[in-house]
């Protein structure tokens, strides 16, 4: 009895010590995981607290008001929300057709080697800092737009309000173009992955029924990869909405709503970048922070939608076209 207890006890202590080490490691890493949760909550709280002067003064009218006048201390978000949404939509209307087309070419037509090489190149481009795109936009794209593209557009479609006004070079369209280029890598690489995940049988069945290659892509492959492609669009959209530097350098800084895509405007991120350090007075700063809160909500909703699409795809596939 005594001996067996003597033998047993040390192991049980060792066992306890072992599990205590486990508990310790668990608690230690848990602390850091909880820290992530805390930081994310903190971001929401800070934005909410520090925007309170503007929220209390303007209420929900802040979002709809077109007035932005620091001198008379009156602030409204409408021109910036309009600019943010318009530039992002312009960007997507260019980058989605081109990007999805390129993804189809890379996944269905190109040789695996070429496809892998170009994808590697595209992933590198996703890492290029946005200030560098801004640099290229301000010195290359703006003169190009001012001297050639915008006069041509005004000449051809100047009678519509969409393309009216003088050619400034900077403005919604220029910002949309540089955003389109910046979203190419995301849309192409995520769409390409979705297309590559489509089972081979799907293509072969269509081809065996006598479909041409394009018909098999359009009727069998694209519907299957639909959710993945849509999520790539949402990811591109979230990126375009929150993009700061490149847009700030070419948007033209005009806090007003214009129908013409050629005219200068403003976006949420750009006005924060330009005016935050110069903002004097509590209300001015808190109005800018409230704009930041609006931007945060916009991108969070879009990101959540993108994530939902991805979860839906991985759960069921999206074959039911």
């Amino acid at each position, binding site marked *: 009895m005594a001996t067996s207890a003597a033998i047993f006890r040390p192991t049980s202590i060792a066992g306890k010590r072992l599990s205590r080490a486990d508990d310790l490691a668990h608690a230690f890493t848990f602390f850091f995981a909880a820290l*992530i949760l805390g930081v994310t909550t903190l971001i929401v709280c*800070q*934005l909410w607290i520090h925007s309170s002067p503007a929220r209390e003064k303007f209420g929900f009218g802040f979002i709809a008001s077109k007035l932005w006048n620091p001198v008379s201390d009156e602030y409204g978000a409408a021109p910036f929300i309009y600019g943010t949404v318009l530039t992002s939509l312009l960007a997507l209307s260019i980058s989605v057709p081109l990007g999805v087309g*390129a993804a189809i070419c890379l996944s269905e037509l190109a040789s695996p080697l070429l496809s892998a090489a170009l994808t590697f190149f595209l992933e590198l481009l996703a890492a290029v800092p946005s200030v560098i795109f801004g640099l290229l936009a301000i010195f290359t794209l703006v003169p190009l737009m001012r001297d050639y593209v915008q006069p041509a557009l005004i000449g051809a479609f100047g009678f519509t309000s969409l393309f009216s006004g003088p050619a400034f070079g900077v403005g919604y369209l220029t910002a949309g173009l540089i955003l389109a280029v910046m979203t190419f890598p995301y849309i192409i690489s995520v769409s390409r992955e979705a297309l590559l995940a489509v089972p081979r049988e799907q293509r072969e069945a269509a081809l065996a029924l006598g479909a041409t290659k394009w018909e098999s892509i359009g009727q069998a492959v694209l519907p299957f990869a639909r959710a993945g492609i849509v999520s790539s669009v949402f990811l591109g959209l979230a990126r375009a909405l929150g993009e700061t530097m490149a847009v700030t350098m070419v948007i033209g800084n005009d806090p007003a709503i214009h129908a013409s895509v050629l005219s200068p405007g403003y976006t949420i991120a750009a006005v924060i970048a330009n005016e935050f350090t110069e903002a004097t007075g509590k209300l001015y700063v808190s109005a800018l922070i409230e704009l930041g809160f609006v931007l945060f909500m916009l991108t969070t909703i879009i990101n959540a939608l993108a994530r939902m699409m991805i979860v839906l795809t991985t759960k069921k596939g999206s074959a039911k076209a």
Partner: protein
Amino acid sequence: MSRAMSARNMRRNAINNVMLSLTAVCAFVTVSTLFLILGHLVYNGGTSVDINLFTKLPLAPGEPGGGMANAVVGSAEIVFIASLIGLPVGFFAGIYLAEFSGKKFGILVRYAADLLNGVPSIVIGIVAWTLLVLPMHRFSALSGAVALSLMLIPITARGTEQFLLEVPRNMREGALALGANKWRATASVIVPAARKGIMTAMILGVARISGETAPLLFTALNNQFWSSGLNQPTASLPVMIFSRATGPYDDWHRQAWAAGLALLALVLVTNVTARLILSCSGSKGASLSG
């Protein structure tokens, strides 16, 4: 009948050819646009880069010459401190997510990390401003570093988790069968096995934050001179590029191109190196975009 059929088939074939060529045109346009603009940057940067950029301080506005040595050092300083904060937090949180997390809390933390990763960088800048600049009453390198570390944490956490989960199940079981407890198995078997992947994720994360401008605009601000401490405004390469590019002088524009090329080279070289490390380790299936 057969003639009608063949006419229809000809039409189908024509559509097929047109559409497939169109996708090829799309691929060509997108890829060549990206090549063109990068080529343009390399050309303009290459013709304007000089050694003064890395050895001299900025001169008075408008005076040609000078450099941005203080911005190079300032960037290194800010990114180093951001890494000191962000990498350990992200690493241990990643271990928790992969090895210890229960189902519900794990999902919550994962969601929070993805949310944090999606927050626009300018908003991160605002938050760092409210947390540090406002109470300290001054712009500082430290607040810039905290802003960047907030971006680095979720990247590192999710990367670490992803590569830990890729470690084969039998290695885990082998360690546990030898009598190791969970902590021992994680520290001496699983983490070392995923070492290369985790390092790659960390290097890519650091490369990403070193090019960020927006979070630094109103935290670290900018400085024409050497910064005298962590609690002082500090110049950084991306902010310097922004202020030079939007400034009125030709020589500033030249410096912006040169600094842009330097920043691009730094980011691309780090990226290629990190991806080479990963491909040597034979780990696969991990998409590292973003």
